[in-house]
């Protein structure tokens, strides 16, 4: 007979092995210090090389460039969204011809660079001036801004069509069947049942697409549109001051970060009924 009559009293947990200085921590602090120094250097560059004359001269130009970038992106996103609707439906239709055509459109626009598309439209179509003048479209194709708009809209339409298609196909079949068994017409089913569920899925990719568009829109600077990047290049070519690029970086980072936070808030707000 040898069972324990007295249990060992509970003991406190052993002290946590906590090392103040680990190699990872040292490395992490070194990296943070590096970022801090870099930030400080940039700040110092801006403070000590401050030139009120340049600021007065180029500041308003930067603001107008920012306006051009934002209008260009907004308009092309809207036109792209409109254009993406027929492409999405063609992509999902059972018609062989429509399906192939839309597939080719999406494939071509997604696998060639935006720069090449822009050059093809601006310089390439510019060659057909007599023909375009005859149809009365020359005013459109002679302006770099419109050409940028056209190429961005065509490009983003391909991406948005894929986003929309993926989102619509992610809605389970049961939703269609349920609506059909309730006797709801097809169009009503699509707009009231399928689309709202699809758009929630599509929300995050749409946000990414807008951010990609803002970043991609910098290429119009190469075809002489004075957007934010264009004004930056103008200022740099006049002053050879490296700060020109740093200011542009600050502007772009501010837009993208703001948009990212707005989008996160929007997503949290719109999906609050799905939270458990």
């Amino acid at each position, binding site marked *: 007979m040898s069972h324990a009559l007295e249990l060992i009293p509970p003991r406190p947990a052993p002290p946590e092995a906590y090392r103040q200085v680990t190699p990872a921590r040292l*490395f*992490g602090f070194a*990296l943070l210090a590096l970022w801090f120094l870099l930030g400080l250097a940039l700040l110092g560059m801006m403070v000590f090389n401050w030139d009120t004359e340049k600021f007065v001269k180029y500041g308003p130009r930067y603001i107008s460039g920012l306006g051009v970038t934002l209008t260009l992106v907004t308009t092309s996103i809207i036109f792209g969204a409109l254009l993406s609707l027929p492409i999405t439906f063609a992509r999902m239709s059972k018609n062989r011809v429509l399906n192939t055509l839309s597939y080719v459109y999406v494939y071509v626009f997604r696998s*060639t660079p935006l720069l090449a598309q822009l*050059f*093809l439209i601006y310089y390439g*179509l510019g060659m057909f001036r007599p023909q375009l003048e005859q149809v009365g479209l020359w005013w459109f194709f002679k302006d770099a801004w419109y050409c940028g708009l056209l190429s961005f809209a065509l490009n983003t339409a391909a991406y948005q069509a894929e986003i929309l298609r993926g989102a619509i196909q992610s809605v389970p079949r049961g939703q269609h069947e349920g609506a059909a068994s309730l006797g709801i017409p097809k169009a009503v089913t699509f707009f009231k049942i399928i689309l709202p569920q699809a758009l929630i899925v599509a929300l995050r990719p749409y946000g990414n697409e807008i951010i990609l568009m803002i970043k991609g*829109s910098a290429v119009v600077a190469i075809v002489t549109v004075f957007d934010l990047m264009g004004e930056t290049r103008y200022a740099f070519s006049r002053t050879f001051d490296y700060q020109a*690029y740093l200011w542009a970086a600050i502007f*772009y980072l501010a837009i993208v970060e703001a948009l990212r936070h707005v989008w996160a808030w929007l997503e949290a707000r719109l999906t609050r009924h799905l939270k458990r």
Partner: protein
Amino acid sequence: MGGLSSAFGSIWATFLDLFDPFCGRFGIFTLFGDGSLLACGVDGWGDEIGFGVKITMALALATLPLGLIIGFLVALAAQSEEKSLRLSAGVYTTIFRGLPELLTIFIIYYGLQMLIQTVLAAIGFEQRIEINAFLAGMAALAIVNSAYSSEVMLSAFRAIPKGQYEAGAALGLSRTKTMLLIVLPQLIRIALPGLNNLWMILLKDTSYISVIGLSEIMRQTGVAARNTKEAFFFYSIACGLYLLLAMLSSFGLSFIDRWAKRSEVGR
């Protein structure tokens, strides 16, 4: 020695002559471009454009491993338990995912140039320096690519259960060995679709390097377009070439995909 290297040179020249896909004996521009704007040699632009394609491919292929390695290190920092490492990785991805690629390229190109000039001036050399567009482009694209690939790898890291690390520790493997032998193979498999996507993006982003003067597809076709006034034709060729590269790489990537999934076939 000289004879040997010249022999190698002539073998290489024969090899190029036979297998160059653009202006070799059986290249497309030799076979179909004769007498047109795309002829090889001095009358056409075939050889220039073929050279551009090679530069584009070389740039993308040279950038990829660099971007992946930096991206892996950044992802490693971003999933570490150390707060300062996570924070510095976060700063890196936020900055380089938020900047337009074009701006990153300019910042790095002119920034490196200025940096080298200041360093040289400090030693006592006063000289205007122009750095190599290929290297500057490689650095810029690798940084952009690493910022994106670190995000892909970070989500792959999160998909690997903790038990895998614990099993490695239970087998007595060191942390490095656990990472290399257990985690990394699974990581690659999970991250592969995302990385395929990034390769396609990288291939397209090489077109931006034309703005700092690297003679890749966009620049070569641009020069041809300006000289011949046949912009539509040459930019269509550029689009077609990018399309071709994309098709070729999706063909190659499907092989890699199948190779990565070879253990799942039986199921």
